[in-house]
């Protein structure tokens, strides 16, 4: 039950939507992915050019097949890393694809530049040269760069990538929301109310820690603040249910009658959280 923010939290937040679809905070990987080609161009290593015979369609198909394995492996590793760099799972596949695509294109581009730098400009077969550069770039991604592998295989804390403390807090926040989503509160179990109080406190403390690590005026800060407010609403609903069990219905029934403005406001927050946590 991963957290899914959806339109309730994303609407009107262009920066957040761009980050979640394009994987902006992972673009530091471009630097580490391009490193082998860059070093080769400077003479530190050597790139073995592949011999692409001609730019015919069958050659394109073969080129895609050859390059697909390292690119796929890279994409899976990037997806695994992005899972821990983002709080929610919205647009996960699209985001992984976009980051992989950007890293792959950057590696190919720099490989091509390195080949031009070392071997001079290509003759008249530009297409073959481009395919060649992309292929070699794709291969360098998964086999040549220890630094790149370190960046995508584990939480390495390298510069330009999310800090280890940040990803640790994200892990904790995800766990906290998972626990809240499984609370007996949603099944109207009065025995679960005390435990829910400490779960909400834990989630809010983790969000407060995350807030300290991001730009206070940024989209992520606004997201963590909204989640904190919605947790406040859940705490209000919990206290109401603790005082009178009949109040479960006002927050969990599909269409409660005659709710006050205060209850309606808090219920909206609870509904948003409930949808994000996938509670049925």
């Amino acid at each position, binding site marked *: 039950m991963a957290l899914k923010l959806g339109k309730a939290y994303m609407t009107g937040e262009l920066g957040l939507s761009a980050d979640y679809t394009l994987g902006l905070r992972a673009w530091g990987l471009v630097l580490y992915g391009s490193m082998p080609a860059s070093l080769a161009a400077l003479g530190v290593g050597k790139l073995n050019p592949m011999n692409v015979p001609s730019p015919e369609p069958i050659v394109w198909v073969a080129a895609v097949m050859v390059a697909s394995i390292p690119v796929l492996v890279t994409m899976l590793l990037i997806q695994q890393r992005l899972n821990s760099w983002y709080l929610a799972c919205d647009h996960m596949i699209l985001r992984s694809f976009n980051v992989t695509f950007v890293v792959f294109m950057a590696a190919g581009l720099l490989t091509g530049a390195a080949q031009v730098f070392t071997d001079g400009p290509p003759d008249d077969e530009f297409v073959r040269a481009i395919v060649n550069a992309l292929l070699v770039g794709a291969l360098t991604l998964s086999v040549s760069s220890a630094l790149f592998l370190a960046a995508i295989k584990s939480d390495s804390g390298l510069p330009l990538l999310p800090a280890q403390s940040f990803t640790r807090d994200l892990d904790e926040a995800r766990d906290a929301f998972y626990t809240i989503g499984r609370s007996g509160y949603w099944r109207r179990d009065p025995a679960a109310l005390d435990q829910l109080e400490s779960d909400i406190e834990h989630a809010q403390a983790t969000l407060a820690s995350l807030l300290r690590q991001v730009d206070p005026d940024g989209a992520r800060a606004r997201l963590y603040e909204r989640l904190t407010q919605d947790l406040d609403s859940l705490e209000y609903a919990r206290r109401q249910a603790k005082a009178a069990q*009949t*109040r479960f219905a006002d927050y969990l029934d599909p269409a409660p009658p005659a*709710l*006050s403005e*205060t*209850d309606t406001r808090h219920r909206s927050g609870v509904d948003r959280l409930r949808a994000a946590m996938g509670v049925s």
Partner: protein
Amino acid sequence: MSGLKLCVLALRANDLDRASAEIGLPKSDVKLLTSLYGSSPDDWKPFARKSVGEYVTDAGMLPVPLTADLYRTGDSAALNRLVRDVELLLIDPVCVVAQIHQTGVVWRLEAVIRRAKLSFCVIYPPRLSQTMKDLLRTKCEEHLPLLTLAPPEEGAWDVSSEGYLKSFLAGLKSRRRPAANPSQVDAVASLLAGAGITSPSFPGTPRLR
């Protein structure tokens, strides 16, 4: 902050037309009342500034409104829960006199409030015309005969200012404190007597720290 389970017998904004036709409210009073109601009785702002729940919060108690149960028509269990749990009934005389709710529901609430010595409060909008206020008072007493017998510390019949409402809620809060346990008081008194304090006095409710 302790929870206070309350039920608000007040109009909703869309009940006002029906109520004014039922009672024959003059236009000036209808205009005055329009701004006091919201989509729920819990949104009732008797003095146009704060909702009734906010006054309860200001008095240091957590309002736990059970009013929605009044509108769960066909769910008798909800009404039973409401009658069983309610601790404070806030009454809008316009709502009672216009008979917005079924008479049986109001009677059950009235009976439980009186029998269990719970609290109630009839609140009049302060700028209502005196004629209308007198009419509402008379009719309200006719509709709630049991509550007219309640002693003043249990119920207030003529709350027409914020100060009165606040002092009523402050009194209610102090009455809700747990009473001193006589056996504990005796035990403490004997301990103090053993320490040489022969005539201990407890001006307030003794509490463990």
